[in-house]
């Protein structure tokens, strides 16, 4: 009887840990660095979150372009090609959402693309999103105890 109680309590505890880890992962995606901050890992939050924020802001400053799925005027394959970079950009969480609401970085005109740093900026924005996916996974791993 006691063994069954112990097993039940352990299962409930594991479920709690799992739910908490998913929430921390979601927080880490939504706001870069928040996943580590919620676990009290302030230095890691500052370093990892800071790197993503700096990368994203540098990309915007350089005049980079943010992608959306419906961003292309043409349909078919052209629209399909927008999907992978949109997934990468979405990794930045609230930064992307904030820019999407304000309409910053989504301009697709020749004058904007003529900037010398346009391509660099676009890549910085993509990389910021991809790096934040790594940071988010790290926060998840720390939360479930796979990492110190």
């Amino acid at each position: 009887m006691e063994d069954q109680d112990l097993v039940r309590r352990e299962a409930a505890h594991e479920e709690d840990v799992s739910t908490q880890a998913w929430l921390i992962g979601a927080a880490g995606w939504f706001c870069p660095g928040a996943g580590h901050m919620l676990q009290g890992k302030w230095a890691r939050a500052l370093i990892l979150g800071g790197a993503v924020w700096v990368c994203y802001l540098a990309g915007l400053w350089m005049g980079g372009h943010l992608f959306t799925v419906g961003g292309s005027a043409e349909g078919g394959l052209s629209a399909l090609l927008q999907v992978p970079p949109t997934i990468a950009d979405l990794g930045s969480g609230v930064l992307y959402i904030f820019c999407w609401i304000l309409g910053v970085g989504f301009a697709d005109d020749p004058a904007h693309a003529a900037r010398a740093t346009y391509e660099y900026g676009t890549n910085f924005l993509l990389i910021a999103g991809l790096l934040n996916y790594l940071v988010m996974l790290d926060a998840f791993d720390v939360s479930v105890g796979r990492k110190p």
Partner: protein
Amino acid sequence: MRHVLVMTTFAFIASVVFGAVAKDTSKDRFLYGLKVFAEFMVIGLALSWALYFLPL
């Protein structure tokens, strides 16, 4: 010069994240980050010189 600066900035940011998420101790993280940074820089410079000689 601007190209090198942008490449260095990218290499630094990427190596900070790679270093921080890849290893378990602070020393290993620092060394791995340094290694990734050096790799980005060396490969970037090598590729840019290789492309310089190609008639593109």
